[in-house]
């Protein structure tokens, strides 16, 4: 059914939605039998150049528990000027402004091609964007200098009316007052004392002229800005701030031999969160944390300041030897929840050779929709360009970022089969979940139909898992269509609030009679990614080996070889921070990127023809090839043994070997292309056969040739991988055996 392929593609392009099943089984039992749950990947803010927002507000269903938005699937009685909600069947009159409505004069939201439509909410004054820099000063001089430059550069990228704030921290936490003339003022907090939000606000003298600020969102942000000396419009404090950043010193407290610098990341974040909480609740704000090492001081510390005690490893964690882990995680979760509650998102830019405590801090970004960027140093292009890319703009010259989003999912009322977003395997709770839940996560945070996405971008993709709740004996009538509506309210980077509504519908199918249809409606890629996400979620929340076992049981019939070896599930060879980092990105990228992450792409360049994708297998590693591997996080260019020798000999410099030069250039060009668009920027590795960096490649390929079977299996081709991991061949053999045995 090529139509399904097209249908899927079309849906993705239009609505940013991909379902694992494009026909839905009509009862819970059937759904369970399908193993892969009815689920979807949804990209709320998918870039739609051809979707101009409409300048009015959506029409809502008048039933208080429904509030669905008028959509093309609704029944409309043009004469009576009444429409029926397709979720609750409530009949609603059109508002007066729709008086001129008729069959030929339909509003956009009724047109089928506008199954996704974006409204601009005009209510209230625009609220400025807020950017809060939280900068670690316990860095090497070189790093700090690079960071300072990046920060200064970023000022020029901010919209002029955006508010900026600056916190620096080391042993102490300094909140800089930006409006001061002459002497540079800053408020200082000690790094080892946690302060309640209220206390912080008292200490800062932010006795809110609060009547205004209290009402959900500041009625007059301008005034708010005026009274908060810590957050000032960029255009006003540009010079000040640039100077200030320029004068930033390394943390002046001496670091004794054998100690780590004291880094009060926890308190710095706490202060930042409290400040924003006190001044601009429910306003889009981005809190950017730059750290060059693990928190070592005060609440949220991840490791002590003694160098002789190394930072926790997976091994420690499994042995329950990570002293600070639980406490720190709890602390950061608390912060994340507060921050999410206020609609502020937190980015983490961690650049250090050692771990920086991302494992504990990941929730900050995960729960608030912030970025995590991990690098070796602030003085690398990886960081510099990635950071720059945070402020990239779209075709409308708007930032590719949105704030304070709230995603609501509406499904049809109980009479029709009931689908509810939820945590798989989690019993549905009350039908109408609480109005609002604080946080979101693609998976795993369920029991509600509303999530908060404090920061989101065009590629932010959520995984939604639905459950068919009607019983087997009361199936959905044949031919019925199920509908789901995604309502995303958010603050656009141009400070206006917008609402994007996506309404989709799928047919119900009886698993007994229409099994082929259902099979054909299966979206393999989406399902793979969705299941992978589930696995990652479980991996994060449960013990490692159990997850693998669960995955094996659950996905035995799926092609999950690479996933199983990926850093998303395997922690071997990865530090806790790296695992966190990888998982963070895995659960928020769109389908294509997710697939790359699961199964890295390997291109082969040779004189024999144009570049071709090759198997991710050790057999692809040949002496006369150049390989380009994209794992999403790394971009590896691998020169085969012969090529490397040629290159070393300098043939590419010789006119007669122009073609060789071109061959060398080709992967570079392709890599550049990828580098241009990817966020975060991948680690770029240019290596050759036998190079130490070749490990990036060798660890990914299928070890079809190892020291065990080098001569048994192989002929001439490929490079042996020295590993005990099973190869795909073994895996497949095992799978087959299992499949057979299970069927008997």
């Amino acid at each position: 059914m090529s139509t399904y392929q097209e249908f899927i593609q079309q849906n993705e392009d239009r609505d940013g939605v991909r379902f694992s099943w494009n026909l839905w089984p009509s009862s819970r039992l059937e759904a369970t039998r399908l193993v892969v749950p009815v689920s979807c990947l949804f990209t709320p803010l998918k870039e739609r150049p051809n979707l101009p927002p409409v300048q009015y507000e959506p029409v809502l269903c008048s039933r208080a528990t429904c509030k669905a938005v008028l959509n093309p699937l609704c029944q409309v009685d043009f004469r009576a000027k009444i429409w029926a909600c397709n979720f609750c069947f409530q009949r609603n009159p059109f508002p007066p402004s729709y008086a001129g409505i008729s069959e030929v004069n339909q509003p956009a939201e009724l047109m089928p091609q506008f199954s996704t439509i974006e409204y601009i909410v005009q209510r209230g004054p625009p609220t400025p964007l807020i950017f809060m820099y939280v900068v670690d000063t316990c860095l090497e001089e070189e790093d700090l200098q690079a960071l300072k430059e990046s920060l200064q550069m970023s000022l020029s990228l901010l919209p002029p009316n955006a508010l900026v704030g600056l916190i620096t921290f080391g042993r102490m936490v300094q909140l800089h007052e930006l409006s001061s003339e002459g002497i540079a003022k800053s408020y200082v907090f000690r790094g080892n004392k946690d302060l309640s939000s209220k206390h912080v606000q008292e200490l800062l003298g932010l006795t809110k002229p609060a009547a205004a600020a209290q009402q959900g969102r500041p009625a007059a942000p301008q005034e708010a800005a005026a009274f908060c000396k810590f957050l000032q419009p960029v255009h006003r404090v540009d010079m000040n701030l640039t100077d200030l950043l320029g004068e930033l010193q390394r943390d002046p407290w001496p670091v004794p031999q054998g100690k780590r610098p004291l880094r009060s990341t926890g308190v710095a974040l706490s202060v930042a969160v409290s400040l924003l909480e006190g001044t601009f609740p429910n306003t889009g704000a981005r809190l950017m944390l730059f750290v060059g090492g693990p928190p070592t001081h005060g609440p949220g510390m991840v490791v002590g300041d003694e160098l002789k005690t190394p930072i926790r490893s997976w091994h420690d964690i499994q042995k329950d030897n990570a002293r600070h882990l639980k406490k720190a995680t709890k602390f950061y979760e608390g912060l994340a929840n507060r921050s999410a509650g206020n609609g502020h998102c937190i980015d983490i830019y961690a650049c250090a050779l050692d771990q920086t405590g991302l494992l504990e801090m990941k929730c900050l970004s995960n729960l608030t929709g912030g970025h995590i960027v991990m690098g070796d140093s602030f003085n690398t292009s990886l960081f510099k360009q990635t950071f720059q890319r945070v402020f990239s703009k779209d075709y409308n010259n708007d930032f590719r970022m949105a704030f304070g989003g709230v995603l609501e999912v509406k499904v049809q009322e109980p009479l029709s089969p009931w689908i509810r977003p939820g945590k798989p395997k989690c019993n549905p709770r009350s039908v109408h979940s609480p109005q609002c839940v604080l946080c979101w996560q693609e998976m795993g945070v369920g029991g509600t139909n509303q999530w908060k996405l404090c920061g989101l971008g065009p590629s932010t993709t959520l995984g939604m898992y639905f459950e068919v709740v009607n019983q087997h004996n009361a199936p959905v009538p044949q031919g019925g269509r199920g509908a789901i509506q995604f309502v995303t309210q958010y603050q656009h980077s141009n400070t206006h609030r917008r609402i994007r509504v996506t309404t989709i519908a799928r047919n119900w199918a009886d698993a007994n009679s229409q099994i082929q249809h259902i099979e054909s409606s299966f979206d393999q890629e989406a399902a793979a990614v969705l299941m992978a996400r589930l696995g990652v979620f479980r991996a994060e929340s449960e013990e490692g080996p159990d997850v693998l076992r669960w995955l094996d049981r659950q996905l035995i019939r799926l092609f999950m070889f690479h996933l199983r070896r990926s850093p998303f599930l395997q922690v071997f060879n990865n530090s806790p921070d790296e695992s966190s980092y990888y998982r963070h990105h895995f659960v928020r990228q769109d389908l294509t990127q997710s697939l790359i992450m699961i199964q890295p792409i390997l291109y082969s360049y040779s004189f024999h023809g144009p570049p071709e994708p090759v198997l991710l297998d050790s057999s692809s590693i040949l002496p006369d090839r150049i390989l380009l591997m994209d794992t999403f996080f790394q971009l590896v260019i691998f020169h085969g043994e012969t090529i490397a020798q040629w290159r070393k000999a300098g043939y590419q410099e010789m006119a007669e070997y122009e073609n060789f030069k071109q061959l060398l250039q080709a992967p570079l060009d392709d890599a550049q292309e990828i580098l241009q668009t990817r966020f975060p920027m991948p680690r770029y590795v240019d290596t050759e056969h036998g190079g130490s960096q070749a490990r990036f490649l060798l660890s990914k390929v299928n070890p079809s040739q190892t020291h065990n079977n080098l001569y048994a299996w192989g002929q001439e081709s490929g490079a042996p991988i020295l590993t005990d991991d099973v190869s795909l061949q073994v895996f497949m053999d095992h799978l087959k055996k299992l499949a057979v045995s299970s069927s008997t």
Partner: protein
Amino acid sequence: MNVNQHTPMASPYGQPQPGYGQPNYAPLDGGYPASYAPYNGPASAYQPGVPPQGYSFTSFPSKAVAANPASDLSSSLDLGSARGPPTSAPPPVSAPQQYNQYSHSPADMQNGPPPMTQAPPRPAGSQPYGLGGGQPSYPQHYAPPPTMQQVTNQMGGMQLTSGPPTPAGLGYAPPHSSQPPISTSYQSAPQPSFTQAPPPASSAPTQPPPPNAPAASQQYYRGPPPPPQPPFNSALPPTSQQQFLSSAPPPPSQQTFPPSFSSSIPPPSCAPAPPVSQSQQPFSTPQPHFSSAPPPVSQPGFPSGPPPPAQGSFPPQPTPSSSQPGSVPPPGPPPTSVTSGQYPTPIQHQQQPPDSQPSPYHSGPPPPRFQMPPTVNHLPPGPQSPPGPQGPLQQPPSPQTGYPPQQNGAFGQTRSPQAGYPGPYPVQPNYGAPAPAPAPAAPAQKRLDPDAIPSPQAPDMPAVQKSRHRIDPDAIPSPIQVIEDDKAKTNEPFVTGVRGQAPPLVTTSFHVRDQGNASPRFVRCTAYNMPCTADMAKQSQVPLAAVIKPLATLPPDENPPYMVDHGEGGPIRCNRCKAYMCPYMQFIEGGRRFQCSFCNCVTDVPPHYFQHLDHTGKRVDCYDRPELSLGSYEFLATVDYCKNNKLPQPPAFIFLIDVSYNAVKSGMVSIVCHELKSLLDHLPRENPEVDSVVRVGFVTYNKVLHFYNVKASLAQPQMLVVSDVSDMFVPLLDGFLVNVNESRQVIESLLDQIPEMFADTRETETVFGPVIQAGLEALKAADCAGKLFVFHTSLPIAEAPGKLKNREDKKLIGTDKEKSLFQPQVGFYNNLAKECVAQGCCVDLFLFPNQYVDVATLGVVPVSTGGSVYKYTYFQAQTDQERFLNDLRRDLQKHVGFDAVMRVRTSTGIRATDFFGSFYMSNTTDVELAGLDCDKAITVEFKHDDKLSEETGALMQCAVLYTSCSGQRRLRIHNMAVNCCSQLADLYRNCETDTIINYFSKYAFRGVLSNPTKAVRDTLVNQCAQILACYRKNCASPSSAGQLILPECMKLLPVYLNCVLKSDVLLPGADVSLDDRAYLKQLISCMDVADTHVFFYPRLLPVMKLESGSLPVAVRNSEERLSKGGVYLMETGLHLFLWVGASVQQELLLNLFGTPSFSQIDSSMINLPVLDNPFSQRLREIIDSFRAQRSRYMKLVVVKQEDRTELIFRHFLVEDKSASGGASYVDFLCHMHKEIRQLLS
């Protein structure tokens, strides 16, 4: 007065006695001489001159009633003024004669004693006070005739009542002393009767009657003497006597004469004298009168208050007065006769003296005369031509001449003789001046009238009121006289090599030569001759203490302590007690070992320190090594003496400036900031050539703290706000404490901006605890010691540790709960102080309060860390700026050490048990001072824990380990050796009243923390009374109980003690705030002797006529010394007043203020206008020199007579009754006398 006097007294008297013929005395004398013998030797010369006189007079009056007494009195006065000892020495002039006499005196000694008894007569005068009979005395003074009666009354009253009424009186009011004379007269008069019954004599009553009689005083009059009307005469004489006793110079003079009259009466007393003597005899078999008289206070008094001051000295004599009662009685009857009889000759002398008192002295020939003269001096004031006649009577005291010797003895110690002599003359003049004006007019009017009448009637009445007036203020010991005498006798450098030698007074400028003991600028002791046993010490009640000012600034012509470096091993110390190498160590075994003279432990001499001994057992390099030849020197400390065994970092200064609304508005902030810019160039340094290594840091604060990063590399300072004051910390390290020169630009920029930044502040709340914590944390972080300069305005009520409440509650004052007001409100600051001390963080607090700020609590940290508190109430930039800035400059620049530990080691037998000052102690021996500057003194009290030996004396070694302002660790050592005595007399002869007062004040001011102020005052009075009573009982020659006898060295004790009792801390006036009291309390706690002296007894200079090169002679702090046509400059160490009389000559005003009219003087001026005339220049010079002397800048307040500010000024006229109920000097002396009598009976 003290022992010395006695001894001398004894001897002189002894002789006289012979003269008198009363054998009785002789024995007595004999006794005395023996004990005093040593002194006699040295003192004898002096003694002859002065001491005897004073005392003798007193005694005489009683005994000799006749002229002799008077003369005695006069003489005694003179002597007294001279401070017996000195005068005696100097006495050159009259000396010869006197000496002769004195020489006789030794023999006379006994006679002396009698005089003492006579002295009692004076006491009698004093008695009057007690009795109220005193009143009469006053009148008497003024109006001799009436006085007679009155006097008698007083006399009677004093002696009789308390002892007799009079005695009491005398005792109480120094003024009485003037009366005392009267009493003496009484005595004389009564004496007869009394004499007859010596015991009776002692029993005031008997005498009283006589006195009464003489005094015409009601009671007494009736009875006995009245008829004798000689009373008048007698009265007069008595007065003189009293005066002598009391030492009231001026009146005395008058009185003295009267005394003489009285003496005339006394003569009878003379007759009675014998009786008296009997009475006295009890004391000393010899003639009580004589003996008593001489020995009595008179001697002490004289010595102490040598000649002119003699009066002063007399006061002590007043004590004798106590004796007077006894003696008096006897005198009473005999007086006249006696005078005639016994004293006749003396009388003549006296008479002579009276007339030309001076001459007498000169002529001095008759020793008595000398004495007389003194008395005469008194007399002069007395004017009392009437006295004149009496004078003769008093002269009878001449027998006292014998006494004089004693006094001389006393003087001997001092230079009294010389001084005395000269003194007398000068005195006379003085008297003349005062006497004429005050005595005649004022006294007569005021005192006489009221007192006289009432007192008699109501003997029971508080002696004070009645007595005051009665006693002639000039007859009581005069501080001025004592001071002047000491100055006069100090004309060569003070050499510290002699053990147990008392240094000149703090008011005297002298050169010190260090020859093995610490200079008195470093260490002053209350007693330079300590009792050998605890029993003695307890009996005498004389506090054994030393006031140590370890880093005292020396005058430019004296070398600062040498630095000694013993190399890597560190200073050489005794193995057991760890005393440092000092001149007292005995090298033995050819120099291979040394024996510690503190603990007697023998220690090996390290090879590198070995040196051979010469034939005397001294090391041959003895004079090459400061630690073997000097009393003060420094060791370079090794790393072992450093905290954490790390050489210290250079210290840091942190400025913490309140920038709340009040601070900004008052202009404080901008003044401080502006001043700091230039001040930072003057941070303390040891070598003026080198830049100071002291680093600086800046903090401003209101409710939150602002730290400043002033790192040299910054273009602009950075402000770091710490608003979390609940748990203070330092936000930055690098850049907070900086070198001034490196960061100069940034610092200046900061100081320029601070006032601007906070110009519009509306924050009124402040914190305080966190401010100090901040500084402390900064020093901790920098790992150095240092000093915080906190500029603070208001009660810290903002929410923070150390938050305070306003607890000022006037209702509590005077109740048992009053003490709580002096205690810190919260314990927080005590703990904080402890931490500060541990870090070597000294805190100086500058307060600018507009209302209550609870100095008692805020001051805890400064006081415990060796810092200072400065307070500028209602600070206004315009008027207070200069004072504040000068204080700040001085405070910042002064020589200071950090992180100091002081330990006082003593020879076995005594132990340092108690310490007073600004410091912290975590154990019982180590005084820890976070900061120690050159103005801080520590008073150390010693107690016996074993016996001391006379041969070895008592040694003490004060070692202060500190970090210099250049960051060098050093040990400063001060050694002090004093004598030990087994005779109480020796103790009393070598005391330092100023130092004792320093101790008492600190002791009392600390006492208010735990006791009601009333109890504290009572304790003080008690102890003082015990001291004097002990003296009287054990050292003074027997004399009538009515006679007040004061040891020469302590004759000013009552007047000074009264000042302490009247201080705002112990007896607050209604307008004195709690803060002021707490402020003064802590201020005194670290004062040295010179500071306490001028604080309690302000210097009051008449500045109508100024000469370049010398200061005018001060006048006593009493309103009656002020002349309407005069201008006076008063200095208290904290304040400077220029009092302008209402009828000052225009010319003077023009010279001074540039305005011819009194009404046009701007009393708000804070500096004298700069006028180009010698007078103005000189006065401003004087003012500047005064300011330069004190550690705190004194703001000049121009006080116009009758102006409102005069109230404040009057507060410092400490000899007058204070508005808050403090007794006048005279009253207090009477009271003291009464106390003593009670103790004796």
